[in-house]
Each structure stands twice: as C-alpha cells, then as structure tokens.
C-alpha cells in the first residue's frame, strides 16, 4: 500500500473515531439525563436502559479503537482494503452541493409547494450533471436538459399524486 494511501486511511479513521466518540458522549448524556430510566422499577424486566447502555459502551470501545489505530498506526503494515478515492475538495463538491440543495428542497417544499420546488431542483441538477458530462453547454443542450427536468417533474407528479395519491404540498 502506498504511504499516501495509508495516511488517507489513518486520517479517515481518526475523523470517524472522533465523530463516533462525540456521538457516544451525546448518547450517554441523553441516557444519564433521562430521569424516567432511573426513577422506575421495571420489575423482572431489565428495563429500557440496558440494551442502549451496552450498545453505547460497545460504540465507545469501537470508536476509541479507531482513534488509537489511526494515531499509533498499529496495523499499518497489514494489507488493508483502502477506500478507492483519495479525499479531495473537488471530488466532494458536487455531493456536498446536492445534500445542501436537498435540504433546501425539503425545507422549502411545504412553503412554496411541490411543483415549483421540484421543478427548480430538477432543472438545477439536470443542468449541473449534464454540464459535468458534456462541459460548457450550448443553448440547444441546455434546452434539452431543462426539457428533461420538466419531464421528470411531470412524471413524478403524475405517479405520486394521481396514481399513488400521496397528499403532496
């Protein structure tokens, strides 16, 4: 394994481990702060706190092991499977943008309605992904991508609102 790849794995494990340690701490705080779990006697039932507590301990151990492995490189001489992509800002730009626009889509849909929100979203991404494939668009190609977005919106609306009868905003 190339040294650069090992460092990528180590950084990935370190970040993951720290995030999971944070999640474990948050979960532990939630359980400890839940007075109902401590107030009642559940009789023969070990109670609703047992399994979550065991799992939190297990998660904490796994997270700590990931962090230790990253910091000390305990297993760096073992051939391990390396994630296929090295991290890079350009590589995660489109996925990050998609997640952000999906959140806007979700929060905006109840306010503006399904059709306008979906139309805006599909037009944006049909053009962005089309541009990613084909480079700088011509007027013709942009018009085709917009047309495809309109078709997707219409098809989804017909299927979900008319056939499945989902009450869309």
């Amino acid at each position, binding site marked *: *394994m190339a040294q650069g790849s090992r460092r990528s*794995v180590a950084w*990935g494990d370190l*970040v993951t481990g720290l995030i999971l340690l944070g999640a474990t701490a*948050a*979960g532990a705080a*939630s*359980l400890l702060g*839940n007075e109902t*779990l401590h107030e*009642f006697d559940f009789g*023969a*039932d*070990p109670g*609703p706190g*047992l*399994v*979550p507590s065991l*799992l939190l301990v*297990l*998660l904490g151990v*796994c997270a700590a*092991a*990931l962090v230790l492995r990253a910091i000390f490189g305990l*297993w760096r*001489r*073992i*051939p*391990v*499977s*390396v*994630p296929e*992509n090295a*991290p890079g800002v350009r*590589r*995660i730009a*489109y*996925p990050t943008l*998609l*997640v952000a626009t*999906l*959140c806007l889509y*979700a*929060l905006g*849909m109840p306010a503006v309605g399904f059709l306008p929100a979906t139309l805006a*979203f*599909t037009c944006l*991404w*049909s053009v*962005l992904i089309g541009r*990613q*494939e084909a480079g700088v668009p011509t007027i013709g190609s942009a018009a085709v991508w917009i047309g*495809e977005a309109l078709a*997707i919106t219409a098809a*989804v609306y017909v299927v*979900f609102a008319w056939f*499945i*009868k*989902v*009450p869309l905003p």
Partner: protein
Amino acid sequence: MIGEILNALAIVFSDPTALGLSVVGVLAGIILGALPGVSSTMSLAVLLPLSFSMPPTHGMMFLMGIFSASVYGGSISAILINIPGTPGAIVTQMDGYPMAQKGRAGEALTYALLASAFGGLLGWMLLVVFAPVVASAALHFQSPEYAAVTFFGLTMLAYAAPGSTFKALTAGVIGLLLSTVGLDAVTDVSRFDFGSANLQGGISIIPVAVGIFGLAEVLRNIETGTARYEVIGRLNRLIPPWKEARRLWPMGIRGAVVGAVVGAIPAAGSAIGVTVAYAQEKRMSKAPERYGSGIPEGIVAPESSNNACVGGALIPMMTLGIPGDSMTAVLIGALLIHGLRPGPQLFTDRLDFVASVHVALLIAIVLTLIFGLIGIRYFARILRAPRNVLMTAVTVLCFIGSYAVGNSIFDVLVMIASGAVGYAMHRVGMPVAPVVFGLILGPLLEENIRRALIVNDTWSVFVTRPISATLLLVSIAALVYPLYRDRRLRREAISRRRSGGPCP
C-alpha cells in the same frame, strides 16, 4: 404448501392488476439493473415507496419483479460495456465482455438469460422445499434462540462485508443504536429523543434504507463526470449452438446449488455466491486457462448462482426475519410497512401470504425470461440513457418516496442525513449495509434479550441452551477469526520485507 401455492397462482392469474404490476416490476428491474451505477438494492429501495398504497400481495408482485429482474439485468452491462450493473455480475464480465468482443455478444446475453432463469427456478424450488422446514424448526425457538440467531445474522454480515470486519461491526452497532431511538416498545419510555417530538416516534427503516442504498449511491456517482463507455451494439447471432449449450447444463445446476446455499446464509450475498461458483467451475475444468478469455462456461455458472441466491436469501428472511442480503433487508422494510413481520409465525398465521410471495417470485422469473428474450436486441439502448436524467430522477424518487412513508418532511431529512452519512462511510471504507441490518434487527434482538432475562432471570441462559450457545460460539469465531487472519498477514508481510521481497 403446494396447495397454497396453487391457490395463490389461481388468484394471481385471475387478477390482471397483479400480473400487470409484476410486468412493470420486471421491466423496471431489467432496465435499472442494467444501468451502471444503479445496483439491485438501489433499484428496490428507490421504487419501494411506490408499493405503499398497494395491498401486500400486489406489493410483493411488484417488488419481486424488480428484485429478480434487476439481479439478471446486471449481466447486460457486464457483457456489453465491461461494467457490472450489479455486484452479482462482477464475475460475469470476466468472460461475458471478451465473448462480446469476439462478436458473440448475442450468444453471451442469451446464455446469461437462460442461466439466470434456470438458476432462479432452482433457487425457487429450494425455497419452497426448505422454508417450511426451517420455519417449523424455528417455531420451537424461544427468546434466547431468537436473540442468538439475530446476533448471528449481524456477525455474519460483519464477517462477510467487504473490507474491515471491525468497521463492519462498528457500522452494525450504529444501526442497533439507531433502532433504540424513540419510545421503548415495552415501557413507552422515550430514549435518545433529545427533546424532539419527531425522534420520539423513532427512526423509520424506509428513509434510512432509501438514503443509504439510494441517495448515497447518487452522491458517489456525481463525484466526477464519468468517462463515456463503448457499448458493443452489434449482437450477431442470438441462439447459441445446441451442442455447446447442452454440455453446460451441469454447470448451471452446480452454480444454482452454490448460489442457493450461499444466499441462505444471512448476509452472505450474491457476490460471494458467484465468486464461489466461478472458482468451482474453473477448478473442475480440464482447461482452466481458458476462463477469462470469453467462454460460455464463465457466464453460465455465475449467472445461475446469482439468480439462485434470490431464492436462497428469501429463506432466512421469511422464516427467521433475518435478511439474507441487502435486498431482502429492504424487502423486510416493505413487509413491516404493510404490517407483516417476517418470521415463523408468518407460516402459521399467514400461509396464504407466504404462498403469494413464492408465486410472485416464480412469475417474476418467468416474465424475466420472456421479456429478456424479447428485449435482447434493444438492451444496448438502455445503456445509452442520459446520466443527468437518471441521477436527477433517482434523487427525486428518493425524496418523494421518503416523504410518502408518513407524509412527513422529517422522514425526508432522515433520508438526506442517511444518504450523507452513507456516502461519508463509503469514503472512509466503512460498509453501509450493517447499519440497515442493525436498524431492522435491533428491536428483535432487544425484545428477545429482555424477554429471556424476564423469564430466566440470568444471563447464563444464552450459553446453557445448546442452539443459542452454538450460534453464539460461531458468531464469536466469525468475529475473532479476521483478527487472527490479519495478524498472520502482518507477520507474513514483515517476514517478506526482511527477506527483501515485494511489499503487498
């Protein structure tokens, strides 16, 4: 069981809607399975919400059509563009594409289709024969055995997952923890709600499955623009020579048996089945060096195994409620939405529904064969679908599908978060399927642990009952063995470095 199956067949053939839904499912499955970047699990997860408003039997006709057909569909792109459409087609491309390059693309596609149908039918027969046997045995299980079987399923997933077993186990623990969010089923005490009324209702399986198997794949796909691939459009003859086809039957049978057995092991998945089937045929061959050069033998065994896995994976799913692979994990979500919990009780209380699932799979296999034969000349066109249309449509389907679960924006936000987390997990080399498995199996595991402790008042019950003890021992071995293997590999690598050999 045979009586119920015949009854279910009669009902389906008198119901045009059910047949129509199977046709739609099969066509959607073939098309989506053929497209690179859209896996069988993703196809099922994204289209699953369309089944919410259907009666359970209609929903199964639709979903089984997608399930069975998409598994076959992956071989189309494997053969025509050297990119497997689904994980199970990874081995098919090794001989399928070279065979297409030699001008035998049509024959390669036909071999894949016939082997898929054959393997699918054999897998179906094993499902019909063995599922009632397993269910009958499982009816004698008590809480310790159920807890042990659930734990076994999770550890097998960690063992079989690609990459690090330790990371797969961590992902499974995350899924189990997510399953504890919300109101406890027994005492109604709220856990991990962080003051949110939405979280008190718990985290629904469908948005998480759609996010992890659907949106996360879209996020991976749009990282960069993909290079255009060359589609082999010229098929030449479609019907293979009879003499050649006739000697391949035994390979189809062996591949199907391997696939059904591997598929029945919880979490093993078709990728393992096809690899074992291919390796077996190569080992038995008198000319193993020919494998990889474009021979039909390299297509028939793995494709037969691939589709037999479908029937095999349904055995643990229907009888124990444990997913056989990631696709059956999504199917369990579908059953739960319709108020049906898979397990041995289904075979006593709803044998009619079990029979309808068997019939749905059988019809899906037959329809896949029919539409596969009709559409073979047109498959190349599927592969030329514009990527912007595909990715945008799939994203919107993920969005609306998650919304349709409970008409709630919260479910959509859960889907988005799951997709983002699934994508991040892929980037750090952590498998994502264990999260969904943990979310599905968590309630079952907790319920049975607590019930076992209520009845027996001691933890030793899990090790004193023989079935439970055996399953726990196998589970621990499955977790410990990779550590021993990694340690051995490390020693070998160090000794190679000392002797001046190449580093792995």
